């Protein structure tokens, strides 16, 4: 192996379903490992909100699309001698395979560090993989690779239904599913072929156990199996959709040994150098298995295994790539033993997925062989029950654990058990409480009886608590049992509390009562070796299954330093993801640099903030009031920061403050002042700041009266939602009534908030840091789309390019007033509407916002570092004024995952739907927009574009754009109204027909499915979602057949203008540090 001096690492781009924050963790670890070895690093990743794309991790950062074209340009410029492909998920791997097959790696004499590309290809192509496994008598699922629908039918009939079909080379099960007959197969196969030229037909092994192994092999053939994991849900539910338990609970030592032996045999035969994930189907009635797939790269499972065991898989894999043997690499957690060992864990880990399906219109709630979850949590306990109940609270969807969830209603339990949805675990809870036996539930779900029996124990304890009828009647034994099974004080209060008591109030009494019984949690370390050797581990969790806390050593350099706790952001979800992890990590960095010990609380295994070297102590535990108080009591910190982890910590502010906790920065009262709609409104009135008119209403009559006053459209936010989205825009009475009847009951108990909705207004983000009410740094960015698209979905440019000077001046003035009024010390964000020079405040959050990393990196002023210093009470001087004047533009574009969400309407609205984002920098808006749109998966169309352009206003808006396309030689297709409009304006176009015009040809949907269209511009006419309309069918076809689609007129205009103005080779290949003033 040649000496390597500079490597290039491919990142995974925007977060999407199936490829999320775990690759920020693995890429960051790999980059740090390279740096430790004195190797220069170049990173390509357009995901600007990640930690890996921050200062001090890679030497050069390119916010560019991870595609062969851009990667080659960067290679040409940077001349690295090695490349790392295993740390950026499927995106990096696919790009690596293309670079290899196109001869680019050879051309630039680039050495692939780690698993060779040929080995990767052997594992990715299922046919090759199956042959490879046959060579060593390893059983795979009998799989037929087919290239057309007829062959698929033939194969299915050969293996026999039910079958599962999957697209090769696809992310986390994209385009896959189960089929019971020819008809279902035909439909699904047609779709799968759009994702891949190769589709696999396999016998379904529904009901088998799903077991995973994480194996590491070095170049000297030393192998270890770092972790084994068992899916709670049997085969048939994607591992990303399943609750996963580590280590395996229901396999014997012989069985684990057998699968481990096979795993090692496989990685040796394939020739893995680094890390590999192996998934097995395992028969519950005997030693029969099939290998489902292997991933020759770091994966979601390896991130989980890494956090679950404390073994830094990504860092070790990176060093192995450099030629180190496992024996030469130190275990950086223990700092005492080598990496050549298999972790022994002395706790139980539960990973639970988090779905956000309610955010999407029309999506199916069923879970199955393709992934829909957007995030996950990892819970640690010393019983399965404890870990499970913790985890169910962590997913943050209102559950208090496995039981005591009054809100969840299941109509037909048996049906719900056999057709699993995102609610499955709660259906099991209801079933057990309704008296279903373990055998009955097993028959319907095939979930191993061991898991069910332990869930039954939780229900049994619940029943004992129910009998107490008053918390004073809970005996110490029962209290201990409940806490050991992971019951929260709230759950106990709710179940055991006397009639008429409020659990919110009683929980404090439960806490006092159990403390008087001496029932308190203990702090334990995650040390990779079950206490066999003393470890310097700072990875901690709390449990009631123990009598003594571990002695956590304080590093000598930390002697005498007080600690500051940062509350993290929890599970990734729509609206809160990697950007808050970046904020948390930067807050921790600043705290530690300024002489405190930084302490983190977070439970998301996909994050960097939960990495072993990011803080002085990490509590991998709940962000509930109860648990945060437990940790505060154990830590006795100088203070707590609640404003960098998004809404979860923000929501705890008031209660922590009431409990006497020292919150750093803006006061809890001010936070409440901004959060409470009524308080905030009167504050704005007092300081003379305008906001859209709104009212909280309890009867339909009041709603009508309010609408008469402000006029349609209005934004409607019910406080209690039965189904569908939480917010909607209604343009007329029919829509209003329909939405309110469908979605909510308007009543005294459940008021609805109705606001004036201003059309064709600009939306502006004001991200800033203030100290004692004075703004010291700010970033004003502007949405490309008009207001009405959620700020998390909007395309945002920074600095704002098209804002009147007068508007900007007014914005700053209003922001100063608000900062002063709320006496802000720390980060905050204000969203403004601007029309002409009129500005209104829509929202104000006294915490870091989603756009903080983007604004910080484009501005090159770390707003979180400033904010943290302010919150810690340090003197901070405001940056020079000229620092806010940039010669370049940053664009933040959103990543959508509609292709994963069958039937979801890909239209954007007031509720957020994107799963991730990128941020790219260019010399002007066109360049930045083109880079960012290419980064989120858009392609520059070759020749044919289909237009349906909404109402008159939007049609007019796209007129110039259409002309530009024609000038550039594009062929336009258009549906009825747009076609007419184009014709009237002398724009040549071909008419395409709506699904409702079924007798006419060509049909728009056919053009899309036959890939005759390269891009779809489909602007919905009104702001309401009505499913199964013409527009919906066309939009959905575009998603299902993987044709780029834009549903917003302003974004379409910006993108089209960009690619008509600039060609690929005109885009600058410039690293982050090359953009400066």
């Amino acid at each position, binding site marked *: 192996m040649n000496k390597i001096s500079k490597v290039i690492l491919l990142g995974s781009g925007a977060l999407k379903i199936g490829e999320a924050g775990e690759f920020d963790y693995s890429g960051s670890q790999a980059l740090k490992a390279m740096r430790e070895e004195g190797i220069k690093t170049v990173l390509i990743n357009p995901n600007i909100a990640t930690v890996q794309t921050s200062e001090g991790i890679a030497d050069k950062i390119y916010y560019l699309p991870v595609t062969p074209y851009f990667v080659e340009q960067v290679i040409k410029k940077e001349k690295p001698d090695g490349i790392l492909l295993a740390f950026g998920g499927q995106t990096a791997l696919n790009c690596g395979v293309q670079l290899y097959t196109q001869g680019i790696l050879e051309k630039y004499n680039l050495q692939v560090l780690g698993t060779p590309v040929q080995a990767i290809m052997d594992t990715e192509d299922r046919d090759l993989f199956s042959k490879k496994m046959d060579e060593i008598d390893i059983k795979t699922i009998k799989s037929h690779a087919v290239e057309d629908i007829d062959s698929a039918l033939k194969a299915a009939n050969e293996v026999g239904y039910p079958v599962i079909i999957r697209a090769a080379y696809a992310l986390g099960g994209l385009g896959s599913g189960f089929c019971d007959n020819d008809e279902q197969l035909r439909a699904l196969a047609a779709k799968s072929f759009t994702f891949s030229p190769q589709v696999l037909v396999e016998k379904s092994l529904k009901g088998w156990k799903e077991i995973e192994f994480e194996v590491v092999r070095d170049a000297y053939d030393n192998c270890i199996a770092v972790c084994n994991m068992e899916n709670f849900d049997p085969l048939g539910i994607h591992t990303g959709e399943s609750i996963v338990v580590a280590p395996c609970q*229901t396999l014997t030592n012989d069985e684990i040994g057998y699968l481990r032996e096979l795993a090692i045999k496989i990685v040796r035969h394939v020739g893995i150098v680094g890390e590999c994930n192996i998934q097995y189907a395992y028969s519950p009635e005997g030693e029969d298995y099939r290998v489902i797939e292997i991933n020759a790269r770091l994966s979601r499972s390896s991130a989980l295994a890494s956090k679950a065991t404390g073994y830094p898989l990504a860092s070790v894999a990176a060093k192995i790539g450099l030629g180190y043997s496992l024996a030469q690499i130190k275990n950086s957690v223990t700092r005492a033993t080598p990496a050549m060992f298999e972790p022994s864990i002395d706790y139980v880990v539960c990973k639970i997925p988090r779905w956000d399906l309610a955010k999407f219109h029309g999506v199916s709630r069923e879970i199955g062989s393709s992934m829909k979850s957007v995030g996950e949590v990892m819970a640690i306990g010393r019983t399965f029950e404890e870990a499970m109940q913790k985890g169910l609270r962590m997913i943050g969807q209102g559950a208090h654990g496995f039981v005591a969830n009054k809100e969840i209603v299941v109509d037909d339990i048996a049906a719900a058990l056999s057709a699993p949805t995102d609610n499955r675990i709660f259906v099991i809870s209801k079933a057990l409480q309704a008296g279903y036996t373990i055998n009955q539930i097993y028959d319907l779900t095939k979930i191993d009886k*061991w898991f069910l029996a332990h869930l039954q124990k939780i229900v049994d304890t619940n029943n004992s608590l129910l009998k107490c009828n008053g918390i004073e009647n809970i005996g110490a034994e029962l209290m201990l049992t409940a806490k050991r099974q992971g019951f929260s004080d709230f759950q106990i209060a709710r179940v055991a509390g006397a009639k008429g008591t409020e659990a919110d109030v009683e929980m404090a009494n439960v806490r006092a009562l159990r403390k008087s019984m001496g029932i308190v949690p203990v702090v334990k370390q995650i040390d990779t070796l079950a206490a*066999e050797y*003393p470890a310097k581990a700072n990875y901690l969790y709390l449990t009631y299954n123990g009598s003594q806390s571990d002695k956590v050593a304080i590093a000598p350099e930390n002697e005498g330093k007080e600690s500051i706790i940062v509350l993290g952001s929890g599970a990734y979800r729509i609206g809160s993801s990697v950007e808050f992890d970046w904020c948390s990590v930067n807050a921790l960095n600043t705290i530690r640099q300024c002489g405190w010990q930084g302490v983190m609380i977070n439970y998301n295994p996909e994050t960097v903030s939960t990495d072993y070297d990011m803080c002085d102590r990490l509590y991998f535990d709940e962000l509930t009031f109860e648990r945060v108080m437990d940790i505060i009591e154990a830590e006795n910190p100088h203070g707590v920061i609640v404003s960098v982890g998004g809404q979860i910590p923000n929501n705890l502010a008031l209660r922590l403050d009431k409990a006497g906790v020292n919150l750093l920065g803006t006061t809890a009262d001010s936070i409440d002042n901004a959060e409470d709609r009524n308080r905030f409104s009167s504050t704005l009135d007092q300081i003379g700041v305008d906001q859209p008119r709104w009212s909280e209403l309890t009867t339909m009559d009041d709603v009508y009266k309010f609408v008469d006053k402000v006029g349609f459209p209005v934004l409607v936010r019910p406080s209690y939602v039965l189904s569908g989205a939480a917010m909607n825009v209604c343009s007329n009475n029919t829509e209003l009534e329909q939405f309110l009847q469908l979605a909510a009951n308007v009543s005294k108990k459940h008021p609805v908030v109705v606001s004036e909705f201003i059309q064709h207004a600009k939306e502006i983000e004001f991200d800033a840091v203030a100290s004692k009410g004075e703004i010291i740094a700010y970033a004003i960015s502007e949405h490309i789309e008009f207001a009405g698209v959620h700020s998390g979905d909007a395309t945002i440019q920074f600095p704002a390019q098209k804002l009147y000077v007068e508007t900007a001046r007014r914005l700053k003035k209003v922001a100063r007033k608000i900062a002063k009024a709320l006496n802000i010390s720390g980060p905050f964000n204000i969203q403004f509407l601007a029309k002409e020079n009129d500005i209104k405040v829509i929202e104000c959050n006294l915490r870091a916002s989603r756009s903080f990393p983007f604004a910080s990196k484009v501005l090159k002023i770390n707003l979180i570092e400033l904010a943290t210093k302010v919150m810690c009470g340090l003197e901070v001087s405001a940056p020079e004024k000229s620092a806010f004047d940039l010669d370049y533009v940053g664009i933040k574009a959103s990543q959508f995952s509609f292709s994963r969400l069958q039937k979801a309407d890909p239209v954007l609205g007031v509720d957020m739907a994107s799963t991730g984002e990128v941020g790219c920098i260019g010399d002007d808006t066109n360049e930045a927009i083109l880079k960012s749109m290419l980064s989120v998966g858009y392609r520059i169309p070759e020749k044919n574009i289909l237009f349906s352009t909404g109402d008159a206003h939007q049609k007019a808006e796209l007129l110039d754009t259409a002309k530009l396309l024609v000038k550039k030689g594009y062929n336009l297709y258009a549906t009825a109204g747009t076609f007419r409009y184009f014709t009237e304006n002398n724009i040549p176009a071909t008419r395409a027909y709506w699904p409702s015009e079924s007798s006419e040809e060509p049909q728009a949907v056919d053009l899309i499915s036959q890939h005759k269209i390269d891009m779809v511009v489909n602007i919905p006419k009104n702001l309401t979602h009505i499913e199964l309309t013409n527009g919906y069918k066309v939009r959905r076809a575009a998603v299902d057949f993987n044709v780029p689609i834009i549903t917003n007129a302003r974004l379409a205009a910006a993108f089209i203008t960009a690619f008509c103005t600039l060609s690929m080779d005109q885009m600058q290949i410039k690293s982050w540090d090359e953009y400066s003033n």
Partner: protein
Amino acid sequence: MKNTNSISPDKELAKGRLILEDGTQFNGYIFGLNAPAMGEVVFNTAMAGYPDILTDPSNAGQMVCITYPTIGNYGIPAPEVYAEGKGNEADKFPVLGNLESSKAYVRALIVCDYSEEYSHYKAVSSLGNWMKDQRITGICGIDTRYLTQILRDKGSMMGKIIPDSIKDSNKADSDVEENLVAKVSCTDIIEYSSPAKEKSGKMVAVVDCGVGNKLLKSILELGADVVRVPWNYDFNTVKADAVVIAGAPGNITLCKETIENTKKALAGKRPVMGIGAGNLIVGVAAGAQITPLKSGHRGHNQPITMPGGKKCWISTQNHGWAIDQQSIPNGWSVWFTNLNDGSVEGIRHNVRPMFGCQIAPEAASDTLFIVNDFIKSL
């Protein structure tokens, strides 16, 4: 679907306590046999395999604390089932297949969370019920991590488990040192014929200082026949192509006869392999000294390497003593060392085919080559 194991409801467990030699007391609940128990308290970090730990003769006399918290999940399989070959060779072996031996040897089991509920197609009993039959006490609800830290820092020590129904608050006494090998060894010579398709025609004498079924099977699988002799039998008189000394629980210096016989064997030419504590016997017979390890190596995850090489292996170990490297006599060398603490895990003669390895090579495919290479070289 044949999975019919009933899951018994949670039983009310009696309270009990564990008291260590140093006076530390842990309160918990008794499962298995509700009776007092006493023994040397050791910990084991294997995450699965409690039936193997219970029935491994080399755990005789010990109260084993399992660091993995939840134990009992897959019940106990039928003990009297003969081992079968894997894959096409569905041969029946003349040794039991589900467990290391047909009875439990440990004095007691110490766990955090005992699972009376079990689910496995092979299970015939819950762990607790089987322990009751085997007259083994269990205690659960124990902070096994804290207990492990005590044992790690202070070294293994005596302990006793007392049900709360019995009044006794004295510390655990030191055990009267007994020869545990004599208790676990067979008393008569047993011959096993290999069922393998290709018989090698070789005979291996296994000196039973506490040998488990897996090791016997691993030899038989290679086509060799086995003659198993009691620990104190002069195996030098047995007609065999090689000698394997396997075991042993407790203090091996009490196995005087085995050591004397081994000395004679080392003076000869016949290949010798000491496995597990058999390594210590070979070492002592060769003239080396042995020293106690502070907390012992007990688990499935011990890394070993050969000095000077880049190859390393994960091994299963269960021992509290090691050969003192300084004392290894001329003519012998270190074969394996532990990567974690550098201790000697195996020695070999420089010229003659005589070896010792202090791991359980048969426990995982990683290290099976040690048995395979030895037997195949005959």
